[in-house]
């Protein structure tokens, strides 16, 4: 099994020295993200996030299935992550690394367990037919901070996605093709996003956001905070590593709030741009079968 290439001793020593002098290798500030770009595909539900050299693609698909017997009123919502050897030779197909497991678990906690998607709205006929929403996440290029990029990609793809419109008449369920009726967006409750902090130094006294791969390999511990733009924290994960002060964690949380606000604004703006691009001639409102309540 290929091992991840370790940075050399010179790199480790120099990196820490530079941090103590207040410099990052690429000249960013400690609390600065890399160049972030978000693109939507031609289809609904495809989001492509580029963060520096990290690139992540999320694709949402929907199908009608039978619900779980213990939850007859809930739709099914799954997120699958794949770190393919394309992103880094250290990843192998069908053998999830620890990183991959952590990534999918954190996404699960952030998006699914925080009830960002209202799964009850996915129910078509109780106990018989529900929508199953599936998000496939592909890491195309890995240069650190997969967590934040993936979370943004998943959330953006879900908010961009439209599922086919349906109607119930008596006992018959009709699912309309996009040609018959304009697809409808998912019932989305809030927008949680992740911000990952990495700590450096003997006692974790230096904090960086949006680390590159090299920076990530040299961290002493890290902490991922998921929250929405209203400051409601969905989860905090600090898995092992050097213990960190309570004060610096509180500081991290306030930085996270500020970053999430920026990211949410960007996401809203990109979604608006995309819908404007699709809505040529303002015909979309007429095609929609939803009544404005």
């Amino acid at each position, binding site marked *: 099994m290929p091992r991840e*290439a370790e940075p*050399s001793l010179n*790199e480790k020593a*120099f*990196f820490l020295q*530079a941090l103590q*002098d207040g410099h990052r290798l690429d000249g960013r500030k400690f609390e600065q993200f890399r160049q972030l770009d978000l693109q939507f595909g031609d289809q609904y539900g495809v989001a492509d996030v580029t963060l520096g050299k990290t690139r992540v693609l999320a694709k949402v698909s929907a199908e009608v299935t039978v619900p779980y017997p213990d939850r007859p009123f809930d739709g099914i919502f799954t997120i699958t992550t794949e770190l393919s050897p394309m992103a880094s030779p*250290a990843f192998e197909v069908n053998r999830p690394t620890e990183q991959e497991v952590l990534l999918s678990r954190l996404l699960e906690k952030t998006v699914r367990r925080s009830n960002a998607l209202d799964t009850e709205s996915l129910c078509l006929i109780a106990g018989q037919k529900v929508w199953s929403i599936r998000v496939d996440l592909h890491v195309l290029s890995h240069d650190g901070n997969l967590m934040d990029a993936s979370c943004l990609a998943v959330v953006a793809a879900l908010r961009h996605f439209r599922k086919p419109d349906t109607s119930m008449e008596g006992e018959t369920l009709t699912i309309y093709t996009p040609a018959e009726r304009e697809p409808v967006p998912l019932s989305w409750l809030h927008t949680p996003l992740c911000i990952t902090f990495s700590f450096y130094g003997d006692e974790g006294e230096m904090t960086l956001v949006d680390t590159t791969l090299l920076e990530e390999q040299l961290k002493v511990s890290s902490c991922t905070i998921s929250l929405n733009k209203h400051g409601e924290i969905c989860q905090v994960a600090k898995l092992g590593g050097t213990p960190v002060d309570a004060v610096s964690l509180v500081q991290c949380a306030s930085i996270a709030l500020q970053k999430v606000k920026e990211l949410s604004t960007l996401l809203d703006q990109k979604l608006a741009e995309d819908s404007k691009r699709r809505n040529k001639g303002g015909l979309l409102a007429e095609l929609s079968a939803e009544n404005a309540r």
Partner: protein
Amino acid sequence: MATDSEMVFVLPGDGIDASLIPTHPKRPLRLGPGLRHIPPSTIVPTIAGQLVTDHKKNSLWVEYNGGRYIPAVGDLVIGQVDRSAADFYYVALSDYSSNASLPQLAFEMATKKTRPNLATGALVYARVSLANRHMDPELECVNSSTGKADGLGPLVGGMLYSISLGMARRLLMRKSVEEGRVVVLEELGALGLAFETAVGRNGKMWVNSEDTKTVLIVGRAVKETDEGNLTVDQQKKLVRKLVKEMS
């Protein structure tokens, strides 16, 4: 350099015009990387790139940027010590490829008792002494005929940057300014920055200086030149911008 300032680009499988192949009355024709000889007299490129000929040496090769480093005898490389065995250090030249071996006695003035002690993760500047297709390459840090180090040996301190193979080749050219069109290092030196560098053909550059800031400036300048494929004027502008930003 290229034939009469006009660059010739080839694709894999292209035919090579007979007029481009250098003819020398005495020396045999030498084929470099990216070319394959099919007997009796066909030469076919195996990779896309710029066809370069050297009439004096009667040689012909394809210059390309990218791909994995393939060791060749005489190349200067920067390796990272992976582990040490009884008589050898095993040194990684590029990530995820098999290690090269560096005999522990292949250093200047090294004897059984005075050989250098390199920890895992240490960097060495070495020359490839043996490179065969199906064998792990061998390195040396000493000129075997004179017994001198010639600047090779362990690299202490400083920072290692990854650059593209093409950039490494350009930096290692004898006239890197005229032929390679890289002026960043000269420009940085002209602005009064004191630093030392070592460039490995395997796409690595080591930079050291007394001042952390200088190392950062040099590293960023070279990486940005490499990634942006900057022209000479753009490089000069970049250097001025970086120095201003960091001071």
